[in-house]
């Protein structure tokens, strides 16, 4: 009886408490053409960020916080891009390095390929116009609406910027109210202030 118990106990508690790390699959998946969305998270001066990459380019940069936890962002990518989503930190080394340099003030221009598939129609036109605003300068909602071909659609332009799937890299923080106010920001105004300060648009000691 006790012998039987010992046997079953040994089987039930079969897994070691300190097992080896599991083999990483992301490189093999990518080599097989099966890694549709590779992602990584990182800490930055504007908080925790999630970066997602497809074979076409960077498809998503998300601020992670209470409103948008990691699970929600990944679930959205699974539904809208592909469910083949894997953590693959090394695949995001390039974008991460460019972001680090941007925050350190040593990079004024991102050289990342972008995958625009999460944007459509007018929103995409507004965001492409926004992507052309040079580092350290600002535009207005009316300005980007005009650049997108619809000068009077400045309210819709505001909504388009609010749904930017690639903040920072597509610099919607450089769009301010014509009257001089900061306007709104997807990630909250505090983040917008930090980004404008990094670029020297706002004074550093504020």
């Amino acid at each position: 009886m006790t012998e039987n118990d010992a046997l079953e106990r040994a089987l039930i508690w079969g897994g070691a408490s300190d097992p080896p790390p599991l083999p990483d699959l992301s490189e093999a998946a990518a080599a097989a053409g099966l890694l549709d969305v590779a992602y990584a998270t990182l800490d930055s001066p504007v908080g925790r960020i999630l970066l997602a990459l497809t074979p076409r380019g960077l498809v998503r940069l998300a601020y992670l916080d209470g409103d948008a936890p990691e699970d929600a962002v990944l679930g959205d990518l699974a539904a809208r891009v592909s469910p083949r989503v894997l953590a693959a930190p090394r695949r995001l080394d390039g974008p991460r390095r460019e972001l680090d340099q941007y925050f350190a003030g040593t990079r004024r221009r991102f050289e990342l390929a972008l995958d625009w598939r999460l944007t459509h129609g007018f929103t995409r036109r507004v965001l492409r116009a926004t992507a052309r605003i040079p580092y350290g300068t600002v535009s207005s909602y009316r300005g980007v609406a005009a650049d997108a071909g619809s000068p009077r659609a400045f309210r819709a332009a505001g909504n388009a910027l609010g749904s930017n799937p690639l903040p920072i890299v597509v610099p919607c923080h450089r769009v301010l109210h014509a009257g001089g106010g900061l306007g709104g920001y997807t990630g909250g105004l505090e983040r917008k202030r930090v980004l404008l300060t990094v670029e020297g648009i706002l004074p550093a000691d504020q």
Partner: protein
Amino acid sequence: MTSSSVSSRVTLPPFQQLLDAHGRDVHRFLVATVGSGAADDCYQETWLAALRAYPRLRNASNLRSWIMTVAHHKAIDHLRARGRAAIPVDEVSAGTAGPAELRDPEIWALVRDLPNKQRMAIALRYLADAAYSEISEVMGTSEEAARRNVHEGLKRLRTEYVR
């Protein structure tokens, strides 16, 4: 009512979620059934096969059974190929350095000496904590057969395992 008539699309969670939830169970199961020397290769084959089929999956209600079924297939394939190559089991599954996946390698060496069906059923039951219904689903047998495989396997182990 409407959702089934609108389309057959199912909401699939990000694949990483499956990997986080079941990666360890899959690896343990493979170490126990094919040995630590072959487990990593079978593990990669399992997840790549699953990743390939994943977007076309029509039923996401039991992803755990699904992934264990894929792992079971890979283990069977591997054991068959090894049988053809006539490689002695001991050579293939020789212990490797570093931390072990299983607490008591000795008992799992005994499990690996069991007939395939018993070995698979025992590994599923005790390492992946599978109910008999899940074992029957994964191995494609009746629930009665799943129960029998576990019990026959245990009976045999009891004659050999002394503590």
